[in-house]
């Protein structure tokens, strides 16, 4: 039996990704595309809203990574470098959720996106007309520099997204492992020996979302008392 398909080739259809994670994933993908489009075609007012929406998602994901379902929790998939090496060397991985290698990619993407949002929050456009909501906290030079990094940083994000999609395709066609459908339906065919996903509490999800929205609202208001 090929080790890579062990987890996903069984007869049992089990939940692997909870609803908050799936909503987060696809909303994020859509918002990243929208952010790119609005920047490319000079709709910077929409671009700033899009970035703030991504901020909400990122804060939610961070919180959910501590109180969410078992596959959402960082502790379940963030391992040391040794487990990544072991996974690459071909040892068995009888599990659901992110593989040790996939975990690296997730962390890298979340970090790069956080940097991108952070830069956007303090950036201003070159004509001095559009500002991130926290731009007034820093000097014009800082805002200009933030904008100048914000653009090439997106190229890094794009590279990681390319890697992500490439990996999905590789697993699908070289390893016979379907990954996209489970991220939509939340279910995958898993082997009987796989430990099942422990779902998170729905009220915990609502609470995380409320906190994420609250922080975003505070940021949009300019982070009082530092701003308006």
């Amino acid at each position: 039996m090929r080790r890579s398909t062990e987890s996903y080739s069984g007869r049992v259809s089990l939940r692997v990704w909870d609803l908050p994670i799936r909503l987060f994933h696809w909303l994020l993908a859509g918002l990243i595309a929208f952010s790119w489009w609005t920047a490319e075609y000079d709709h910077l007012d929409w671009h700033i809203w899009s970035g703030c929406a991504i901020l909400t998602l990122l804060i939610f994901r961070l919180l959910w990574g501590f109180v969410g379902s078992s596959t959402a929790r960082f502790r379940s998939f963030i391992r040391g470098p040794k487990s990544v090496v072991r996974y690459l060397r071909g040892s068995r991985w009888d599990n659901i959720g992110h593989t040790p290698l996939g975990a690296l990619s997730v962390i890298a993407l979340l970090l790069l996106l956080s940097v991108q949002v952070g830069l956007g929050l303090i950036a201003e456009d070159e004509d001095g007309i559009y500002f991130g909501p926290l731009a007034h906290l820093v000097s014009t030079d800082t805002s200009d520099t933030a904008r100048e990094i914000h653009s090439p940083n997106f190229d890094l994000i794009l590279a990681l997204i390319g890697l992500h999609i490439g990996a999905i395709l590789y697993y699908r066609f070289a390893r016979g492992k379907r990954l996209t459908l489970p991220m939509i339906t939340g279910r995958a065919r898993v082997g009987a020996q796989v430990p099942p996903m422990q779902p998170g509490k729905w009220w915990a999800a609502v609470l995380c979302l409320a906190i994420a929205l609250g922080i975003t609202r505070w940021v949009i208001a300019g982070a009082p008392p530092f701003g308006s």
Partner: protein
Amino acid sequence: MVRTACIALGAIVLLSCSSSKSNQANAASNSVAASAETRTPPKLTHDQALALMKQRNDNMKAMGDAAGKVGKSFQSGSPDLNVIRQAAAQIASLAPKVVSWFPAGTGPDVGKTRAKAEIWQKPEDFASKAHDFSQAAMDFNDAAKLGDMNRIKVTFGAMGKTCKACHDLYRAPEH
């Protein structure tokens, strides 16, 4: 010997007379031909063009930075009238000169610039948009002098629109 010298001197005097006469004639015809608005300037050397293009870019950046200071002042929640007045005055001093920064020979074919070739293909439209900007900058400066914050915000917003109107057509993207 003396005769040769006299002829030579005479020739020199005649030649210099005629050349200065033709210069005067040229200058006269130039100023007659030129209208009040589009004085035909002497053709720029490559170095002069590049220097002008650099100065133009610096001036544009200065206006953008000034506008940025105003915007940030609004965003902070307690706008600083001194900052706004200074910025408005700076923009108002530069805005009327915009058209003069784009003489022939300072386009993208000459050197690195974000000015698009369309500026010299549609000079009337470009000049009209530059005029709108200049007018809006004056309005903003007047509002800043008076100190009415509502009026300041309205005129600042209107000025931003004139920046965008020109840039949308005549400025190439950053990358």
